C-alpha cells in the first residue's frame, strides 16, 4: 500500500525560467489617429497606452508562442519539457489545439500538449493546470506559454477596442520541486461567472451561431467588450481574488514587493492597486508600450520586469488577472533567481 498522500506528496511546481516576446511591428497612438476618430490624449487618459506591438500579415499565435517558449527554455538552461501548455484566446485554427504545433516547432514532439482557453486569465488558469501536471507526477518539467495575436480578432475600425488590444507572448518553465524553494507555486485562487459571458465576447464563429444556420451579422466575428461594466467587474474581482491569494499564502498585503496584474487598462490597474493598498512603486507595468496582450500579459510583464531589474530574486510577487468568461485568478510566489 502506498502512503496516504501518494507517491508525489510534497511535489510542487517551481518556476525556473521566464521569457517574453513581442512581434517587431509597432502601432503608435499617432498611427491610430490617422485612421480612427480618436486622439493620443483620449487613448492615454482612458487606457494608459502609447504604443502596441502587432503581428505582420501571416504571423500566427504559434509563431509568437514558439519564440517566447524558446527564450523561457534558454532562461531555464533547458532544452526539454515533457508537457507544453498554451494559454490563448486566438489559436492558429479552431481545430486542432495550437500547443502540439508549438511543441513540435520547439523540438518537443512527443510531449503532452494542450491549449487552455480563459481569455485574459489564461496564464493563471494555465499555471494551475501546469502545477497539477507536476504535483500529480504526470510531468517533471512543463513549458507554460501564454500567447495572443489578439489584433486578429479586433475590428480595426472599432476605436474602443482597437486602441487597447495588442499581440505578444510570455512563458515560464516549471520543474518539480518543493514548497520551500523560491519560485514554488502555491495555491492559485480561481473563479468564474458565466452569467456575464456576454460582457467580453466574440459572438460568432462557434457552435451556437453555426448551428443556428443564420449567417453572422456584420461585425459579429470580432471581439467586443462592454467597457464600463468590464471596468467595474475587473476592479471588484481583481481586488477580491488578490486579497484571497495573499491570505492563502499567509502573507499580509504590505508583504507584497511587486504586483504583477493583467495589463488590462491603466485606469483599472490604478483602481486595483489603490484598493489593495499597494504603493505605486511596487506595481509592475508595461501597458504604456505593449497595450493589453490578453493571456500573454502577465508572463510578458514578468519577463520584461526581470530583464530590466524591476523584479529580482527573493521578491514576493502577487499575480492577478481578470477577463472574459468571466474568469479571474490570483496567486502569490517568491520570485526565483532566473534571468529573462
Amino acid at each position, binding site marked *: 500500500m502506498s502512503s496516504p498522500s501518494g507517491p508525489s506528496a510534497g511535489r510542487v511546481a517551481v518556476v525556473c525560467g521566464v521569457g517574453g516576446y513581442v512581434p517587431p511591428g509597432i502601432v503608435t497612438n499617432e498611427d491610430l489617429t490617422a485612421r480612427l476618430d480618436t486622439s493620443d490624449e483620449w487613448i492615454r*487618459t482612458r487606457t494608459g497606452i502609447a504604443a502596441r506591438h502587432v503581428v505582420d500579415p501571416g504571423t500566427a499565435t504559434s509563431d509568437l508562442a514558439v519564440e517566447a517558449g524558446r527564450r523561457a527554455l534558454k532562461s531555464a538552461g533547458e532544452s526539454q519539457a515533457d508537457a507544453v501548455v498554451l494559454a490563448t484566446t486566438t489559436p492558429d485554427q479552431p481545430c486542432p489545439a495550437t500547443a502540439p504545433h508549438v511543441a513540435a516547432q520547439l523540438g518537443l514532439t512527443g510531449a503532452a500538449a494542450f491549449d487552455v482557453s480563459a481569455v485574459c486569465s489564461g496564464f493563471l488558469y494555465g499555471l494551475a493546470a501546469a502545477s497539477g501536471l507536476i504535483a500529480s507526477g504526470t510531468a517533471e518539467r512543463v513549458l507554460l506559454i501564454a500567447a495572443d495575436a489578439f489584433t486578429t480578432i479586433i475590428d480595426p475600425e472599432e476605436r474602443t477596442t482597437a486602441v487597447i488590444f495588442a499581440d505578444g507572448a510570455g512563458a515560464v518553465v516549471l520543474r518539480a520541486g518543493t514548497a520551500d524553494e523560491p519560485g514554488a507555486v502555491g495555491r492559485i485562487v480561481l473563479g468564474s461567472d458565466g452569467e456575464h459571458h456576454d460582457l467580453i465576447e466574440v459572438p460568432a464563429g462557434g457552435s451556437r451561431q453555426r448551428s443556428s444556420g443564420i449567417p453572422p451579422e456584420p461585425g459579429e466575428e470580432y471581439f467586443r467588450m462592454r*467597457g*464600463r461594466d468590464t*471596468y*467595474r467587474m475587473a476592479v*471588484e474581482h481583481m481586488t477580491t481574488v488578490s486579497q484571497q491569494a495573499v491570505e492563502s499564502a499567509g502573507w499580509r498585503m504590505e508583504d507584497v514587493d511587486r504586483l504583477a496584474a493583467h495589463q488590462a487598462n491603466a*485606469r483599472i490597474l490604478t*483602481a486595483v492597486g489603490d484598493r489593495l493598498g499597494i504603493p505605486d512603486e511596487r506595481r509592475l507595468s508595461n501597458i504604456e508600450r505593449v497595450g493589453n496582450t490578453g493571456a500573454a500579459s502577465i508572463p510578458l510583464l514578468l519577463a520584461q520586469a526581470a530583464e530590466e531589474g524591476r523584479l529580482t530574486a527573493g521578491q514576493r510577487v502577487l499575480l492577478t488577472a481578470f477577463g472574459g468568461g468571466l474568469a479571474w485568478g490570483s496567486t502569490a510566489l517568491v520570485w526565483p533567481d532566473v534571468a529573462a
Partner: protein
Amino acid sequence: MSTMLDQLKEILVSKLKVTAEQVVPEATHEELELDSLAVVELSLVLEQELGIKISDDELLEAPTIGDMVALMDERSAKV
C-alpha cells in the same frame, strides 16, 4: 455632520483628481472632466464608502453635481 455635497466633494477630490473649487452644484460631468470610467469609479466608491447604491448609468444621466447629490439624498434615505 457634513452635507451630502461635502461628502461627494471629498470623494471627487481624493479619488478622482477633481479640484475642490470645481465641485459646485451646477457643474456638469464635462466641466469636472469626469469621463465614463470615472463615473463607474464614482459609483463603486459611493457604494464602498457611503453604502449608497447608484449605478453608473444613473450617474451619467444626472446632468449636474446638484442632480447627483439629489440622487444620493434619495438613496441614502432608503437605507
